[in-house]
């Protein structure tokens, strides 16, 4: 899906009519598109007017109930913009906290020194970041150490500048992890995007920063019906559907 296609989703976005994956893709696009941001702000203000037109006076008791509840709820700190790329997650905790039954070759190929699954998300507050890091680390560990974990090694990119990548999947966990020592640099405004291959239909599975070293990425979403994974080059922020031919296709298990 091109930027122009994404642009057409501004109305559906402001009406809350995108599903979650599309909403994330659109918001990623929004971060890089100033003209979209203005239009979306106006559209959101417009849909707020639609909500006002549906106003219903709440029961009188509700105000006291809500005020009583908020008195006991801690407020989240603001988001803080951190310099990108994001620092690697705490490695020592990964090593201590999980026993990897994974083949040593994978560990040797990519190491665990660069667990950086959140390269592309906006920096958030440190507290939440740490929680996310722990949750993602635990999920990655669960896949890598699952008894039915399958590893497939493939190459990505053209001859000369290509690189290797390892795809580890676990049907019992229904998740997959993509490991690479680093994908080749891309022109500004481009990113790598991962896809689940659902019998030829590509389902978005997250973004990979070009050029970043030693990446261990938990594919977004369940494996579900997918038989493998593809990688394409997309505009920054990603696309809803592949807009270029895949630079690599990898099955979840060697056939």
């Amino acid at each position: 899906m091109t930027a122009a296609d994404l642009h057409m989703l501004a109305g559906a976005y402001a009406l809350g009519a995108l599903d979650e994956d599309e909403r994330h893709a659109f918001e990623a696009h929004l971060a890089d598109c100033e003209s979209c941001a203005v239009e979306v702000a106006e559209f959101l203000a417009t849909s707020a007017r639609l909500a006002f037109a549906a106003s219903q006076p709440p029961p009188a008791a509700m105000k006291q109930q809500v005020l009583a509840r908020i008195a006991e709820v801690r407020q989240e700190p603001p988001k803080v913009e951190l310099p990108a790329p994001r620092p690697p997650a705490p490695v020592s905790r990964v090593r201590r906290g999980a026993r990897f039954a994974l083949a040593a070759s994978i560990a040797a190929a990519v190491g665990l020194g660069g667990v950086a699954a959140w390269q592309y998300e906006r920096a958030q507050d440190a507290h939440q970041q740490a929680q996310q890091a722990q949750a993602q680390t635990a999920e990655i560990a669960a896949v890598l150490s699952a008894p039915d974990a399958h590893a497939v090694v493939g190459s990505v990119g053209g001859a000369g500048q290509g690189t290797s990548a390892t795809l580890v999947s676990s049907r019992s966990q229904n998740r997959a992890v993509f490991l690479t020592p680093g994908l080749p640099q891309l022109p500004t405004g481009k990113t790598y995007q991962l896809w689940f291959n659902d019998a030829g239909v590509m389902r978005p599975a997250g973004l990979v920063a070009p050029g970043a070293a030693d990446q261990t990425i938990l594919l977004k979403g369940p494996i579900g019906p997918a038989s493998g994974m593809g990688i394409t080059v997309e505009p920054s922020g990603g696309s809803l559907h592949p807009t270029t031919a895949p630079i690599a296709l990898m099955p979840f298990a060697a056939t």
Partner: protein
Amino acid sequence: MDGPHSTRRGDGSEPTFLGTPPAPGQRPDELLLQVAKGDQDAFAALYDHIAAPVLGIVRSVLRDPAQSEEVAQEVLVEVWRTAARFRPDKGGALAWVLTIAHRRAVDRVRSAQAATDREHKAALLEQTPAYDEVSEAVDRRLEREHVRRCLQALTQMQRESVVLAYYRGLTYREVAELLAVPLGTVKARMRDGLIRMRDCLGVTA
């Protein structure tokens, strides 16, 4: 008829005073910025601005009164909890709050409806469009009158697309299926419809 809610505001830039104007310095955007700093009094004042439209849009999507009230309360607590994430440059405080409200209502519907998707859609087709109920219940309210007039000025497909998505909580894919038109058409009608609504309502971000 609406208790303590003496004013209705649209996007914050064009207030429609139906009673006593709020005290100076008490606009929703400023209140929300105060709330972000932990000001519970500011939250109580903000509540008076947002509780009715929050409950209204949640109820429009969910229909069930008890469940709607529960979700509306969760939304209001979420506003308190996440106030620091509000950015004034992205459509204003009311838009921010009501986006959360709509999303939470839709989340609730979508988690409940997965099993009975088809029946749900069939039932939706037979329901009276929500804006009719909206307008019937509130003909006297200037804001609702205004919105209703603007909705009526849309083409039928623009109006159905906007109403089914926003007031009923359908995705654009569901709207396309329901109206039996291509996805691209629905996307375009939603965008065109909002452009017309924006201009008709005089919204500026």
